[in-house]
């Protein structure tokens, strides 16, 4: 597995082309998710985004997720690249690529990785809107403004179940 956490922009296909061929020989396919900065969020216009992260923990958590995906699915290898810092609309934030002998495992593992990355990897987005900066919150309770009525205590011993075929 290869994990990169970086400020610099990247070319997803060049990264895939540069992936060590010996580790994915026998691959029948690769499934890739590429996430980009949208220029809207809800009803607000998004002028840009700042992504904060927890250096050290980020890389470690992404590597754990890559290992967990390899344990769960019949895949050959994976590549995860995630940016931090200042991004503009249309910029690439994240890419996840999974090579496998058969496409079902590649789809399952890629989807698993992006799903758990969003719940476990220590990145935080702050959006720049015409009204100013605001932190993105993905918790329905947070969005509703509740502070005490709900909890953020996930069962951290267990990963979410993958989307099975």
């Amino acid at each position, binding site marked *: 597995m290869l994990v990169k956490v970086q400020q610099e922009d990247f070319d997803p296909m060049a990264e895939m082309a540069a992936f060590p061929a010996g580790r994915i020989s026998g691959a029948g396919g690769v499934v890739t998710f590429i*996430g980009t900065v949208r220029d809207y969020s809800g009803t607000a216009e998004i002028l840009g985004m700042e*992504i*904060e*992260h*927890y250096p*050290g*923990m980020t890389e*470690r*958590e992404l590597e754990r997720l890559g290992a967990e995906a390899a344990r769960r699915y019949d895949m050959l290898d994976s590549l995860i690249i*995630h940016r931090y810092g200042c991004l503009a609309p249309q910029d690439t*934030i*994240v890419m996840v690529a999974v090579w496998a002998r058969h496409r079902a495992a590649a789809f399952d593992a890629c989807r698993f990785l*992006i799903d758990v*990355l*969003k*719940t*476990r*990897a*220590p*990145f*935080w*987005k*702050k959006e720049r809107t015409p009204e100013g900066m605001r*932190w*993105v*919150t*993905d*918790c329905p*309770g*947070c969005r509703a403004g509740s*502070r*005490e009525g709900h909890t*953020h*205590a*996930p069962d*951290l011993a267990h990963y979410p179940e993958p989307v099975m075929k």
Partner: protein
Amino acid sequence: MIQVKFFASVRERVGTEALRLPWPERGATVAEVLALAEGETGVTLRGAHVLAAVNLQHASFSSVVRDGDEVAFFPPVTGG
């Protein structure tokens, strides 16, 4: 000694990125470290949406902290 770090909206509320707390000889859990940090900074975090990590791994508030550990507090993650 315990190294405490804050990230994102939690960091902004606390007003600092990091604290060093003296190691409490009787030991401590993550929840107790948070209480010590609240005492130090005067900012209440309990009840807000705060998650924790110990030594770069997600941890629950009942996890035991050891002398020299790095304990981090942050809001729910929003990457990807």
